[in-house]
């Protein structure tokens, strides 16, 4: 066995760092494909019901605050930028910048979740949470939505599952932060940063789909 090529950063099952990095990257992409299928089930349900209950979906969507959603979209996009800069810093072996960008990314991620929590609490106050207390008033001119409850069921299911992924992402970031403070990453070994970055961007992209699907129906 090629023991000479083995250093402590290459796990025993791999021949060299390159193979390890490629395997990890293929693994993460494969995982992201499973995630696409996971969200795909929800988006399928959304497509069917939106087609079936177009009027209700249009009316119900107007209740959501488009600007709060827009703000959150921007927050996530910026967090993706800082994540990308963090990966870059890791590749350059710049530990200080890496730590900084991970912290900034985490702040933006947390801000997104905070805004989401605010939006959820508003839905509770306005009886827009599906269940026995559900009551849809709508906005002036768009009060008629017999199937609004389905829209909000999907709204909570989709944004809820997305938020769960954000929380997992923050967990990963915490782990990365600890490791990068310890100086675990350098020019030759930054794969975990890259892999977690892929995950973070993916969760971001899911939101890029959810935002128009839920907030931007019929806003003309």
């Amino acid at each position, binding site marked *: *066995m090629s023991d000479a090529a083995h250093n402590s950063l290459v796990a*025993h*099952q*791999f021949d060299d760092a390159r193979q390890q990095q490629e395997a990890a990257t293929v693994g993460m992409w494969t995982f992201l494909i499973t995630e696409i299928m996971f969200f795909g089930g929800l988006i399928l*349900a959304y497509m069917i*019901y939106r087609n079936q209950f177009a009027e209700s979906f249009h009316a119900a969507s107007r209740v959501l605050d488009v600007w709060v959603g827009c703000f959150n979209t921007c927050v996530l996009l910026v967090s993706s930028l800082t994540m990308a800069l963090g990966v870059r810093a890791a590749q350059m072996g710049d530990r200080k910048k890496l730590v900084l960008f991970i912290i900034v990314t985490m702040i933006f991620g947390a801000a997104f979740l905070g805004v989401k929590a605010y939006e959820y609490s508003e839905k509770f106050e306005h009886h827009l949470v*599906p269940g026995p207390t559900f009551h849809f008033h709508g906005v002036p001119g768009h009060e008629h939505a017999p199937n609004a409850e*389905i829209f909000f*069921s999907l709204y909570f299911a989709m944004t809820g599952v997305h938020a769960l992924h954000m929380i997992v992402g923050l967990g990963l970031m915490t782990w990365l932060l600890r490791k990068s403070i310890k100086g675990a990453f350098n020019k030759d070994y930054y794969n975990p940063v890259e892999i977690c970055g892929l995950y973070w961007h993916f969760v971001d992209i899911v939101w890029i789909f959810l935002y128009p699907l839920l907030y931007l129906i019929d806003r003309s």
Partner: protein
Amino acid sequence: MDTTSTVERVSATGIISDTIRTNFLNADYGIKSWLLTKDHKRIAILYLISITVFFMIGGAFAAMIRMELITPEADVFTSEAYNKVFTTHGIMMVFFFLIPSIPATLGNFLVPVMVGARDLAFPRINLLSWYIYVIGGLFTLTALVLGGVDTGWTFYTPYSSTYSNGYVMLTGIGIFITGFSSILTGLNFIVTVHKMRAPGLGWFRLPLFVWANYAASLIMVLGTPVVAIGIVMIALERGLGLGIFDPRLGGDPVLFQHIFWFYSHPAVYIMILPGMGVVSEIMACFSRRHIFGYKFIAFSSLGIAIIGFLVWGHHMFVSGQSSYAGIVFSLFTFIVAVPSAIKVFNWTATMHKGRIVYSTPMMYALGFIGLFLVGGLTGLFCASLGVDIHIHDTYFIVAHFHYVMVGGSVMAYLGGIHFWWPKMTGRMYPEGWGRFSALLVFVGFNLTFFPQFIAGYLGMPRRYHVYPPEFQIYNVLSSGGALVLGIGFTIPLIYLFWSLKYGEKAGPNPWRAAGLEWETTSPPPTFNFDYQPVVDHEPYNYSEIDARSSATVSTHSVQEEQHV
């Protein structure tokens, strides 16, 4: 690491042996060395033990079903209890036995060895997948102990989301969790096959077992998340009152069926594809021939995996889906039979003019071909729109899918366990008992399930424990067959245990088989090979192997006497 050194010690079996090579079994001792292992071979053994437990639980529930059905009246169970019994049988067998059966045990053990790697790409994730499996299983068992679930293994809405009084949530959580173990296993296989092949091992030199597991992995990775989100939606509906499938809000219960079968039909191919891989290996070895149509078999695995995703609607011909959709799903179901048939023809052609050895694995493999043929062809009956209306939800369907799942997957699984048992444990099983129980399983199986085709065709519905008296004869035959089948499954359990201690020493290659796994020692060392394997020949080079060994006839015939 120095795996070539030999150590002298009292072996685990208590027999003082001369020199024992270090292998993955004696490399380390103690419960901790197993529960924290990252060795794919040890994880395979952990899986083997746990799926056997779930198989026995599922089998016990099958016994209860067959017991109840001996007479047309309700003797043992109330209707509700009977619902819970067949639901538990289905859930245990499908999610906790059949889906992990070959990939998580034989696949886990063999895929890295067959590609000449030291381990799977992600050993820790591999161990994690076993823990996830066990935790999911415990959730489901807890639900069972608390009172069970009565929805059938299909969890159709709105019964499961609104009306059922069983422990749907707990069972659902268990299956959701277990799904991730399947996803992680599939992911590990895909990366390993892509990135960790030994030098010289091109895609078309891979054993067909690896191709089959790769194809099954694609389904695990693409299908499982969909059923997972389906279960999440049911849980949200049942637990939090969201209403995605709730007809009162305009939701569509049939949508759940679509989401469920989008996974659960391809899941059938997760069960059968690795089995087909096992049969390809056994067929070539015991016909002493190069496998016929290697590329056809390899690509038909991928073909099944891909087309298998386009047939789910054939479960819903009478669920109120559009009849045009029904036509398309029916067509694709006929098409998916083509790659399966390609495999059967190629196996048959492999045997043609071969020197067939009726060893235990070969008998299971031959049984597989016969039973899978019946299961597959009756599948075409079910795929026909008109015929399906007659046989839908009857015992004809039950017989059909048992022919594929038990006659196919379980036969292949047992064949594979026997074929690679010497590799996994270093010991031979008793050949006579092996053949006897293979025969018993085949006879018992047919006695159990063939009468169900007739009963079903004559109109006996599935999932009822009370039935018109004219069906009794078929049910008595079936219950009698189940007893034979049960004995047939129990015998291997006993002699395989027995062989761990008393079985003959196997040596690295008792079958004179081709493939990297037979080049290393039995059992293999922790990192599988003491050297970096390099592949410089085509797979299934049996004519070369036999030509080479005929030069040393004397040693050979002795080996043949002993093991074949």
